């Protein structure tokens, strides 16, 4: 039960077109254990067979006509117990080894997927639905676990039981043995067909279950709408329809189940009858001893009944393979190398130069082109432009979230694409418009990614500077309060200030800010602005600007449109450009100020 380290294996090597080979490779490091599980199953099957052989010996010895008893009965009794101990012990051992294999493989797979996903590029993430990814990491991984824990080993068990018991039957009597398996092919075929059909119907049943869940979920989330329009009866009817559909599908599923089990019972029963009658006749004719017949009756059960489970296993084996295929889709993506490239002992100074930079998500479709400008360390660059003008794409190049496709970017004179991503990202702090917080404590959110032990005093200093300390103190458990569903829900402004505190602790040389706020409350706006001012001190800062203040204070304003810089300069120089876009913005502002005064004057005093 120790937390032993998992066998090391790069799962990317397990990717193979053929899922069976892939699954085999996935077992690397666990194959011996799994082999052990299979062997233990074999021994356990042998012990079971041994029990029936011992029974035969006992019956023939004590009840037989010759009455030739060789062993005292106490040994036979102990023999039964011993064999049962062997059988049970090895069954248990097999279960343990199989569990170690399946749980171990699954854990390695889970860890790998988790790490892999956080190393995949943004190009991959933006093209992939979160729900779909999670589905693969959970349901599909669990299907793979079941493949190893139940299906593959279950198949092995059935096959071993068959081989061992059939061999024993052959040893007892060849003719009888052959008669005992005449209907087996039919049992297998019928069970495969039926289980295929059942799993299809089961899927339909599950689909309807999902539909019903969605309806319920929507009804609960939209309860105010339902009530506001007094649509209770309508909703009841709607739910009733789909509820009934689920009932009907369940009925169909159950009907086929109700057919399969007694149906297969009959076939298995017929096979048993054939064997029993044959065996009994041979025993009457004296071709076999009563003890042999007795043993035979025990053995045949273990050949016939497991066979009808074969169908279920065969059908499920294929779902395991499909799941593995879906998981490999993720695994085979290439990671973004974090440490490849140059690193430096000291932090960067923060001088940035763009030279004719171009960037395209897809070939021949540039979202940025002809981008050239220079920022000195500690300067503030404001980016101005409409949605889709390329502001975000531009700042995404700095931490190498994406790599530019043409031109050059220099950081302190070093080509950006040659700097290792991890080092680079350590130099850059990002505060987004609506920052993502994790459902951990506030403290953990602030220290997230700092990568060192942080004292409470330090956390509080950062929170004070970010103007969020007082807010945190009003929460029930202060800094230990959980964020999200299980704790407090933070407003957009509060989230932003937590992100500012986080960035302050990280102490980066370069800063990327989205300074808009969705909050209407202007008092927090002032607080946020103040916090931002603290944060920007002595750092090269890129601001995606929504506020006049940040633009006026900027050392460089880039007005962007259609992926290009259309105007460049400071507030003063840009105001001098008569027909520039920048000037128009400010003309509107003054107009609004005039309007406000007029408005207030208009209502009188």
């Amino acid at each position, binding site marked *: 039960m120790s937390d032993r380290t998992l066998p090391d294996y790069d799962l990317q090597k397990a990717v193979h077109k053929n899922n069976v080979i892939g699954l085999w490779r996935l077992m690397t490091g666990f194959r011996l254990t799994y082999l052990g599980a299979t062997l233990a199953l074999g021994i356990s099957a042998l012990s079971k067979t041994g029990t029936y052989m011992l029974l035969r010996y006992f019956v023939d010895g004590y009840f037989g006509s010759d009455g030739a008893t060789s062993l005292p009965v106490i040994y036979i009794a102990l023999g039964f117990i011993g064999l049962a101990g062997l059988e049970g012990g090895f069954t248990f051992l097999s279960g343990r080894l199989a569990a170690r294999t399946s749980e171990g493989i699954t854990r390695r797979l889970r860890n790998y997927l988790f790490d892999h996903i956080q190393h995949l590029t943004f190009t991959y993430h933006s093209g992939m639905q979160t729900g779909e990814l999670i589905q693969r990491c959970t349901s599909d991984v669990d299907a793979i676990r079941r493949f190893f824990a139940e299906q593959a080993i279950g198949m092995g068990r059935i096959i071993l039981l068959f081989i061992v018991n059939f061999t024993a039957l052959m040893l007892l009597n060849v003719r009888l043995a052959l008669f005992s398996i005449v209907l087996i092919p039919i049992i297998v075929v019928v069970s495969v067909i039926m289980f295929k059909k059942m799993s299809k119907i089961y899927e339909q049943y599950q689909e309807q279950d999902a539909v019903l869940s969605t309806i319920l979920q929507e009804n609960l989330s939209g309860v105010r709408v339902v009530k506001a329009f007094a649509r209770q009866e309508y909703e*009841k009817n709607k739910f009733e329809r789909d509820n009934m559909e*689920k009932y009907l599908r369940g*009925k169909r599923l159950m009907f086929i189940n109700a057919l399969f089990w007694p149906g297969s019972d009959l076939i298995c029963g017929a096979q048993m*009858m054939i064997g029993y009658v044959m065996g009994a006749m041979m025993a009457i004719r004296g071709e076999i001893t009563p003890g042999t017949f007795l043993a035979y009756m025990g053995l045949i059960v273990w050949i016939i009944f497991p066979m009808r489970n074969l169908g279920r296993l065969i059908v499920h084996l294929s779902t395991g393979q499909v799941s593995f295929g879906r998981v490999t889709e993720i695994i085979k993506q290439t990671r973004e190398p974090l440490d490849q490239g140059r690193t430096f002992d000291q932090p960067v100074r923060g001088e940035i130069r763009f030279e004719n930079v171009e960037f395209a998500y897809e070939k021949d479709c540039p979202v940025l082109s002809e981008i050239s400008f220079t920022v000195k360390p500690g300067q503030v660059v404001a980016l101005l*432009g409409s949605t889709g003008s390329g502001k975000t794409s531009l700042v995404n190049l700095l931490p190498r979230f994406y790599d530019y496709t043409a031109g050059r970017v220099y950081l302190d004179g070093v080509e950006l694409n040659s700097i290792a991503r991890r080092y680079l990202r350590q130099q850059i702090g*990002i505060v987004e418009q609506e920052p993502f917080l994790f459902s951990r404590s506030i403290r953990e959110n602030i220290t997230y*990614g700092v990568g060192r032990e942080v004292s409470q005093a330090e956390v509080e200093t950062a929170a004070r500077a970010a103007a969020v300390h007082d807010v945190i103190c009003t929460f029930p458990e202060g800094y230990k309060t959980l964020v999200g569903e299980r704790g407090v829900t933070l407003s957009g402004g509060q989230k932003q200030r937590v992100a500012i505190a*986080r960035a302050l602790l990280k102490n980066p040389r370069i800063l990327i800010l989205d300074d808009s706020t969705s909050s209407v409350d202007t008092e927090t706006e002032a607080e946020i602005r103040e916090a931002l001012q603290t944060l920007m001190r002595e750092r090269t800062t890129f601001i995606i600007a929504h506020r*006049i203040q940040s633009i006026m204070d900027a050392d460089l304003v880039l007005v962007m449109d259609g992926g290009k810089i259309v105007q460049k300069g400071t507030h003063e120089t840009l105001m001098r450009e008569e027909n520039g876009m920048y000037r128009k913005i400010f003309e509107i502002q003054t107009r609004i100020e005039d309007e406000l005064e007029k408005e207030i004057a208009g*209502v009188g005093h």
Partner: protein
Amino acid sequence: MSDIDTFEEEEFQTRFSGKVFRRIMGLLKPHWKTVVGFLITIAVVSALDSVFTYLTKQVFDLAIVPKDLGMLRRIAIQYGSLLVIQAAMVFLFIYMVALLGERIRYDLRQKMFNHLQDLSLSYYSRTPVGWIMSRVTSDSERVADLMTWGLLDSTWAVVNIITAMAFMFVINWQLALIVLGILPFLLWIAIEFRKRILKQFRDVRKYNSKITGSYNENITGVRVVKALGREKENLREFSGLTGEMYRAGYRAAWLSALFLPSVQMISAVAIGAVVWYTGAQNGLLGMTIGSVHAFVSYITFMMWPIQDLARVFAEIQHAIASAERIFSLVDAVPDVVDRPQAIDPGSIHGDIEFDHVYFSYEDEKPVLSDFTLKIRRGETIALVGPTGGGKSTIVNLMCRFYEPKKGVIRIGGQDYTGLSLHAIQSRIGMVLQTPYLFSGTIRDNIRYGRLNATNEEVEAAARLAGAEVFIKNLEKGYDEPVGEGGNLLSVGQKQLISLARAVLARPEIFIMDEATSSVDTLTEALIQKGMEKLMEGRTSFIIAHRLSTIKRADRILVIEDGSIAEIGTHSELLRQRGKYYKLYTKQFRHEMSQALNPFDVDEKSNGHKKAGDDLLPALGD
């Protein structure tokens, strides 16, 4: 689906409660014929299992040993016909019990759903959606399983054990006594095992939902993870979690693997005892080969009923806890219900009066205190003020989602608690701040406002609400699906649809909670126009955030700390230079900087009517 998975199930430690158990069994009453039917068939199936073993004993003792082929034929025929009878019985019981199970699931779900529709908003505000979902989905399954398969399995097991014991006593009472002595021990071991296994599987489920949660956060927050270089630390944490999962899963697996061998081992001791006792006695206790075979078979296969009984016993407590939660939902009493003599006056288009109204949620501090207000029919009231001041509460009371704790609300001079809920709510049109749509097409969603509206009426409503432009631009137009919760549409589009929905409902009172989240300017203008249309001639309450809306109101109420801080028209309030003045200038500057958003400038430079041309004149008039 994943929503339910991630919802962590709370631990419960309920003791076996007879009352709840009786109530569960009460649910079976209407189906008693099916219950009796499947209980009889399963009893027959179970008894036949023991008979088969007895018949094989007879094969030995009456056919093989005396070498009587005729007897063999007779027994074989009996055996064969019983097999067919048993198969028919198996079909019947599976069909009956499964059908009953589905039926009970259906009934429980419908019962809960229907009751949920009648519960008041207060229930929803204190009960998480995930909790309710689990009741309707997994708890109903568990209870139905107990009532059907649980009942069936335990009946089968009990009958099987009893008949097997009976046959053993018939064959040899001394040996049967040995088996009977071991039986309780066997059962006890099995139940203890099952309980532990069940607990392990609950742990596995718990860790599983944690793992799902971790994936979810790391994927949705991948930008932050990358930006802050948290990859290593995250993997370390996650590996700790999968380690816990590994241990729980491993333990559950090997406990399960240990279960059957242990039971088998005890059975083997029983067989050993039988063999030894038989062999050690003179004359073998009168045992025959057939008797030995029968004893070995009975003992070996007793393992299965024992296992079934143990499973049912272990699960019964959880199922009862599930049932308790279901009953707590079904028993929840709605706070707001129709009074016995509630009437529907046919119209609620009259003056509205809040007369010294007090209100608080859940015994907390009062949200509204001594709130008095008279609204003339057709008047538009704008509610402004800080969050938590009581604006939403006024609206909630108006819709009668809640009722005043003290004081009276009158519509057309009559206390509105004298009217039926339907009379009020079916005549109110409401647009929420975060508009909610149901999956289906746009047409379906608009029609939600009036179910019997024709397509023409639906489209006319969309036109009036200003939603038509964007709908026409969609590939399938009105038949475009909106996705779960309307998620395929933007917030602005959802709001336009919900406006159209309210228009179609032809309400007598219109209530709107304006969205604070930014909507692009074009959509914003459309929403404004749609609202205007809706407010025409209707008494309207607007929780307002935009200046243009506020200014258009007949009266503006500044709500603060549960009471009216200021009241009057726009100009009156501005002149007061009080709270409204502050709020107004703040908001003015805010909208100004919004208008400074380069997006607007872009639009303008492209020749669109925008901020400068549109917003300002609106403010000026």
